[in-house]
């Protein structure tokens, strides 16, 4: 029983970061309408940024969080302006090929620059744990969980309370009408894409401590985020958090209870994705 609860606790703590990354993906899909295969590469950049600052300057990853947010926002904006905007009128196949090409390019650029090794950012508090009765909570996963929830809450407030957030939701609902009301769709797209990248960048810093930084770490999270978004329903931001919880809990259960489950954890996201699509195919005519 204690093992089960500890497992569920671990899954719960991981779900925060999953939700953060997947929300970014859902934002670019729902608002901009682009299937961004390169979403995880913003995460990968955030992770390497954190690693570089830590290794070269001894900078605490807590400071890298803000830096990564700004840097990823900037890179995301540039990517939107330079690559995404020109293909928005193109067929969907071309859009997907472009973001896939960007993902391949960035992953292999990182491979050339840093090699395939995994690098962990290990500040003094990395291994700190809190004891809660019979259970253990890692201080870093707990902090990442709280921070993710905080960011998602801020995003929710932004989308429901601010004029810009309302404009973003308006553009997501209808491509034409907001333009007639004086909303510059293009600038809203830019903001949404930058924001999506920034969320991934922050998550990358957290993962550089919880997990590691490596050229392929972002790619794994792109796939997991797609599974979460497919489960939640395309562009449905509210469904992302429960869907992230489902995936994280399923992974935690597999890694604890399946013999030799350590490697098969990486297959759980596919099961979630596949079942979500089977359900969707059944419901659609």
């Amino acid at each position, binding site marked *: 029983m204690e093992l089960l609860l500890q497992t569920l606790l671990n899954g719960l703590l991981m779900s925060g970061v999953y939700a953060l990354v997947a929300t970014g993906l859902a934002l670019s899909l729902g608002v901009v309408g682009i299937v961004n295969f390169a979403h995880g590469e913003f995460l990968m950049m955030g992770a390497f940024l954190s690693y570089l600052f830590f290794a070269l300057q001894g900078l605490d990853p807590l400071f890298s969080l803000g830096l990564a947010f700004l840097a990823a926002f900037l890179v995301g904006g540039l990517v939107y302006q330079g690559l995404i905007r020109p293909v928005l009128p193109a067929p969907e*196949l071309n859009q997907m090929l*472009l973001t896939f*090409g960007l993902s391949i*390019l960035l*992953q292999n650029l990182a*491979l050339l620059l840093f090699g395939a090794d995994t690098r962990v950012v290990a500040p003094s508090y990395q291994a700190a744990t809190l004891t809660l009765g019979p259970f253990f909570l890692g201080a870093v996963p707990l902090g990442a969980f709280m921070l993710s929830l905080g960011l998602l809450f801020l995003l929710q407030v932004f989308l429901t309370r601010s004029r810009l957030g309302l404009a973003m939701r308006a553009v997501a609902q209808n491509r034409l009408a907001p333009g007639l009301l004086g909303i510059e769709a293009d600038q809203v797209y830019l903001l949404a894409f930058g924001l999506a990248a920034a969320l991934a960048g922050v998550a990358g810093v957290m993962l550089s401590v919880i997990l590691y930084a490596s050229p392929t770490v972002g790619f794994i999270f792109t796939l997991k985020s797609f599974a979460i978004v497919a489960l939640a329903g395309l562009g449905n931001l509210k469904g992302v958090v429960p869907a992230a919880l489902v995936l994280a809990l399923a992974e935690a259960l597999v890694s604890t209870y399946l013999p030799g489950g350590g490697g098969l954890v990486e297959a759980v996201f596919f099961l979630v994705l596949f079942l979500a699509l089977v359900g969707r195919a059944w419901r659609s005519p």
Partner: protein
Amino acid sequence: MRELSHLPFLSFFLLLFALLPFLPLGIWGAFLLDVGFFIQLFTAMALSWDLVARTGQLSLAHGAFFGLGAYGAGLLAPHVGTLPALVFGAFVAGAGALLLGSVTLRLHGLYFAIASLAFSEVLRTLALKLAFTGGPIGLPVPPPFGGVWPLAAYYLSFGVLLLATALSLWAEWSPFRLAQAATRQSEAVARVLGVRVVRVKLWSLLLGSLVAGLSGGVYGMKTLFLSPYDAFSLGRAVEALVIPIFGGLYSTLGPLVGGVVLVGLEQALRLWIKEGYLVVYGAILILVILFLPRGLVGLLGRRRG
């Protein structure tokens, strides 16, 4: 008639590949035969990817079909001989395609793209973990026909290229082309016109996956060794899609031209760049989508008026 004008080019390419082993190439002969082998195999992959793309679907699972065919053929070849093993490998790939397609092809196109990428990633994980694949250690594969004929692998890959070209030409010249084009341009309109959209997409995917599976099987018999990282590499899918996009989508000539140029270039570049050569493919993909969406063939076509 436009399609027919490509026929002399096509026949020239195929004839060149058929005669390559007999040309007086001197000391470069062995190297060029190797390059020719990979050009034929990956061009066949590219043609099979294009077959799926003609219905507007982005397949990122061609690396998975390649790997399924490679492992299917490699596991069976010691017991039943070369050709039955290759056919079995292709059927395994086809079964994977049917499983993937029957669930996702009813839905919006992006679901298929996402699921196909996830499919290829999860198969690599499974190949690493399952007992009968040899896991990370890998799987030794016997050479074709017991190794009695040194050119066997080369002509097997030529056969796969011929099959892929024939399939692609058939799809280009028969009414199937119209069904594919209608599906690609607007599924709703195609449905109204009486095209069985899901069936067209599923058939295209099945045919494409069979060719990709055959390519994988022949690949294993050439390299004589398979590892999950090699056989299920995402790089295969990247090659399979960059070649037609670079050469020119939705045609038979485009992937052929693209294959000769890109795979030839890759084999040459690999002498210098060992790891991370996919950077080149990523960059080509982005540049071509942005600036040359009709590919090399489109460029030549425009020049000639």
